[in-house]
C-alpha cells in the first residue's frame, strides 16, 4: 500500500498515513486531487478506480471516506477487507465510532492504525490481539515513570496477562 487517507464528505482530511516518502507539497497535491476524484463518484459505482499509475480502493462509511492507494499487483478485494477490519477496530475501541471520535481522538486513530498495519502490510490478523495491544499501551501510559522497573517486568503481551503494577491514580492519558 502506498498511502491511506480518511476524509469527510466536505473534503476535510481526518487522517493520512503515507508509506512512501514523498515531499509535503507533493502529498498535498495528491490528497487534493484524489479527494476530488473520489468525491465525484456516484454512490452506485464500484469501489475501485485507477488514478495516476495506482489503483485506489475506497469505501464510504457514514460521512467518512476511507481511501487506500495500492499498487498494480495488489488484490483490491482484500484491501476492502482491510479497510473494513480497520473500521471494526475503531468501532470496538471507541464504541460505535463516528466521525467525531476520529476528529477529537485523531492520535488514537493513528495508534490503532499503527498496531494494525506496518509499512502498508497487515501485522496481525486477529482483532482481539490488536485491541489488546492498544489497551495495554494505554494502560502503560497511566503508570508513572518511577515504576520503570515495573514496566520492565510487565510482560503484558503474553495472552491473558495484565500488568500488576497499576499503582497510581495520577493519570497521564492524553485526553485529560
Amino acid at each position, binding site marked *: 500500500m502506498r498511502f491511506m487517507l480518511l476524509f469527510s464528505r466536505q473534503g476535510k482530511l481526518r487522517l493520512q498515513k503515507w508509506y512512501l*516518502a514523498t515531499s509535503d507539497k507533493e502529498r498535498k497535491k495528491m490528497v487534493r486531487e484524489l479527494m476530488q476524484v473520489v468525491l465525484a463518484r456516484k454512490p452506485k459505482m*464500484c469501489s475501485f478506480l485507477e488514478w495516476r499509475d495506482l489503483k485506489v480502493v475506497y469505501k464510504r462509511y457514514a460521512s467518512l471516506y476511507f481511501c487506500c492507494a495500492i499498487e498494480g499487483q495488489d488484490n483490491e478485494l482484500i484491501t476492502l477487507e482491510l479497510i473494513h477490519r480497520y473500521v471494526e477496530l475503531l468501532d470496538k475501541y471507541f464504541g460505535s465510532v463516528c466521525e467525531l471520535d476520529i*476528529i477529537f481522538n485523531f492520535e488514537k486513530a493513528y495508534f490503532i492504525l*499503527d498496531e494494525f498495519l*506496518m509499512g502498508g*502490510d497487515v501485522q496481525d*490478523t486477529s482483532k482481539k*490481539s490488536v485491541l489488546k495491544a492498544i489497551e495495554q499501551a494505554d494502560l502503560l501510559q497511566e503508570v508513572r515513570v518511577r515504576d520503570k522497573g515495573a514496566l520492565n517486568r510487565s510482560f503484558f503481551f503474553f495472552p491473558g496477562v495484565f500488568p500488576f503494577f497499576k499503582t497510581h491514580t495520577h493519570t497521564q492519558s492524553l*485526553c485529560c
Partner: protein
Amino acid sequence: MDSNPSSQKLSSEGALLGSPRPVRQSRRLEVVKKILPLNSKSQRPEVRGFKIALQGGPGGAGSHNRGGETEGSDQARTFLGAWTRKRWGESRGVETEARMVASSLKLQDLIQEIRGAKTQAQEREVIQKECAHIRASFRDGDPLHSHRQLAKLLYVHMLGYPAHFGQMECLKLIASPRFTDKRVGYLGAMLLLDERQDAHLLITNSIKNDLSQGIEAVQGLALCTLSAMGSAEMCRDLAPEVEKLLLQPSPYVRKKAVLTAVHMIRKVPELSDIFLPPCAQLLHERHHGILLGTVTLITELCERSPAALQHFRKVVPQLVHTLRTLVMTGCSAEHSVSGVSDPFLQVQILRLLRILGRNHEESSETMNDLLAQVATNTDTSRNAGNAVLFETVLTIMDIRSAAGLRVLAVNILGRFLLNSDRNIRYVALTSLLKLVQSDHSAVQRHRPTVVECLWEPDASLSRRALELSLALVNSSNVRAMTQELQGFLESCPPDLRADCASGILLAAERFAPTKRWHIDTILRVLTTAGTYVRDDAVANLIQLIGGAQELHAYSVHRLYSALAEDISQQPLVQVAAWCIGEYGDLLLEGTCEETEPLQVEKEEVLALLERVLQSQMSLPATRGYALTALMKLSTRLHGDNNRICQVMSIYGSCQNVELQQRAVEYNALFRKYDHLRAAVLEKMPLVERGGPQVDEEAKESKEVAQLSEAAPLPTETQASKLLDLLDLLDGPSENAQHPPPLDPTPGDTLIHLLDLPCAPRPPAPIPNLKVFEREGLELNLSFVRPPGTPTLLLITVTATNTSGGDVTHFICQAAVPKVCRRPGLRGSLDTPGEKATK
C-alpha cells in the same frame, strides 16, 4: 443520547430561530452518525463521558453549528456554567483567564475551538495564536505538557498549516523516559519527519536505544516508526538490531521486527543477506502475525533477487501445507472473517506461491491440487471469500498450471461476471482482459456476459467491458459484435466514444467479411460518431470505396442519402463529397440493385454540394473536397455547366488561400483548357494503400500533376519533380505515372496502427566508388539493385583512360567472397580515351 431535556428544548429552539440551522443540524447529525451500525458493548468511560458532554450540551446543537453560537452561548452560561465559558468565550472575543495562564489548552479544546471558527480567517487566527503558544512552550520547556503541545501541533499540521518547528520537539519527546511522551513523539516523527529532512537521522540513536530497551511497547513503537519513515542510512545502521529482535521470545516484537525487515529490504536491497537466513525457521511459526510477516518478507526477497527466488523454491511444500491446513481445518474464530479462515494470510500465501511457481514446472505441479482445493472449498457469499478466490485465479493463470485448472479459473471469472456486486464484476473484467491473449477461446465463452456489462452505468466498468469486447472480436463473431458495439456507440458517454469508434473501425478492418459490410460499418460509425473518429478514417474509406468497383453505385447512393440528411459530421461529408464527385453519373442513373432506387436530379446534387460549401460547419478541408467534387461533376453530369462555373468564379476570390487556388485553377480549366477538361477530370485510378498520409497527397498531387501536364510547360521534368516530392510508396504500382521511389516514406510509421501488410522498402542506393586512380587510369564502381530482385546487385566497373596513349593488356579480374554468387561478367572493350564498362 440526548437525554437532557434542556438541550432538547434548545435544539428545538435552535431549529426555529434561524434558517441555516436546519442544514447545519443535519451536518451535525451526519458527523455524529455511527460509522458502523454495530452494537458495541465496550466503551471507554472517558470517551463516553466526553461524547455525552459534547452532545448533551448546547454544543450538541451549537458547537458544530456556526450560526448558533451567539444565541446558544447565553443559554450555555445559564445551563452549564463556567465549564463552557472557556469555549464560548472565544466566540464572543473574550479571552478567558484560564487560557492565558496555563497556555496549555487541552487538545480536544483546541480542536473544538478550531471547528468553532466561522471563517477561514478566524481559523487561521486561532491557529496562529496557538502555534505561538506552542512555540513558546517548546522554547521554554514544559516537560509535563510537551506531549500535549506536540499533539496539538500535529492536529494543526493535518489541517495543512506548517509545523516544521515541532521536529526537534519530537526528538526530545522520543528521548524522554515516559511512555506517553514516546508515543506522541514517535507519532510526530512519522508525520513531520521524513527522509528529506536533515533532522531525521538524529532519531537513529533514540531508536537504537529503544530497541534494546526490553519494554515491548516501546520496542514496538520504535520498530513502527522505523518502518514508516526509515531512510536508507537509518536502515543500514539499525539492521543488526532488528535482526536480533527477530529472535526475541515475544511474538509481539517478532511480528513487528519481521515487517520492519520488509521495509528495510525495500529501502536497501543489500540487506537481504541479513534477513534471508531466519526466514526458513520463521515459517514454522504458529502465530499468524509472524507467519504473515514472514510470507511478506519472503515475497519481497524473491521479487528482488532471482537467487533468493531459487532458494525459496524449497519452501513451497511448507507453504502448501500451511494453506491446506487453513482451508481444510480452519483456524480459531479470532482470525476468521465471515467464515473464511484468515483471508489475509491466505491471500499472502497465494501471492507468494504465484511468484515461486512462475515459470517453474516442479513447483507449479506441487501447487495444482491445493489450488483446486482452495478454488472449490472457499465460501463465496461474502467479499472475503471472493478475495481469496480472486487471488487463486490470479495464481492459477500465472503459474504453469494444468489445462483443467486454467479452465476452472476462467469459469470462476465468468461466475464473478454474473455476481451482483459491482466490485467483483470489475475485478473479473480486469482479469479477463489480461487473459484474453493467452486463453482466447476460454474467454470467448463468456462473450455474451461481457457484452451485457457494456451497458453498466458505472463508467469504469463499461470502459473495461469495452476494452474486453474489442479484444474478443474475431472473424466468426464480427458481425454480431459490431452490431452490439455500434449500439453501444450510440449511447455511450463521450469519453468512451473515441475509443469505441476507433475500436470498431479497427475490428472492421481486420475481420470484414465483405466489402459492402465494411463500407456499411464505416458509414454507420461516421454517422453516429463522426467527430470522434481518427483522421485517417476518411482516407481509408475513400480507398476502400475506390477499390470496390462493384459497389460504387451503392456507395454513392448511400452516401448521398446520408449527406442529404446531415451535413455536420465532417468526415462523413468529406467522404460523401469525394464519392459524389467521382461517381456522380452513377448517382443520377438512379438504378442500384442494392438499395432502393433514388431519383436524384442534377440540380439537387449541385445544390447539396453548394450547401456544404457554404455551411458554417464545414472545415476548409471539407470545402476543398466539395469544390473538387463540383468540378468533377462538370464532366460526369450532362447539360450545361453554368452553375458550376459560377461557383468557381465566386470562389476565385475566397479568403482561404487553398480554396482560392483551386477555384482559380478550375476556372482556368474551364476557360483556357476546356478541351482537356474531360481528360483531366476522369475517374481516379486506385491509389496504392501505403499509408494514410500518402493517399491524401497522392490524390491532391495527382490532380496537380494532371493539371500541370495540361499546361504548356516542360511537362516531363515538372511531373517528375512533383512525383519525386510525393514520396510515394514502394512496390509495383498499377500506374505508369509512379516511378519506383527512392526514399522511404513517412507513411511507414503509421502503418503499424493499421496492421496492414506492406511491401518492404527498397534499400537505399549505394553511392558510386572511385577505387583506383594512377597514371591516367581510373576505375569507378557503380552499384544498382534492380527493383525486382533485391538480392541481386549489379556492379558496373568503369575504367577510364585519361592519358594520351593506349592502354594495352588490360585485364580485369573480379574476385568475390564466397558469400556472393557471381552470375557472370559482361563487358565491352575499349578504345583509348573511352570508357570501358563491365
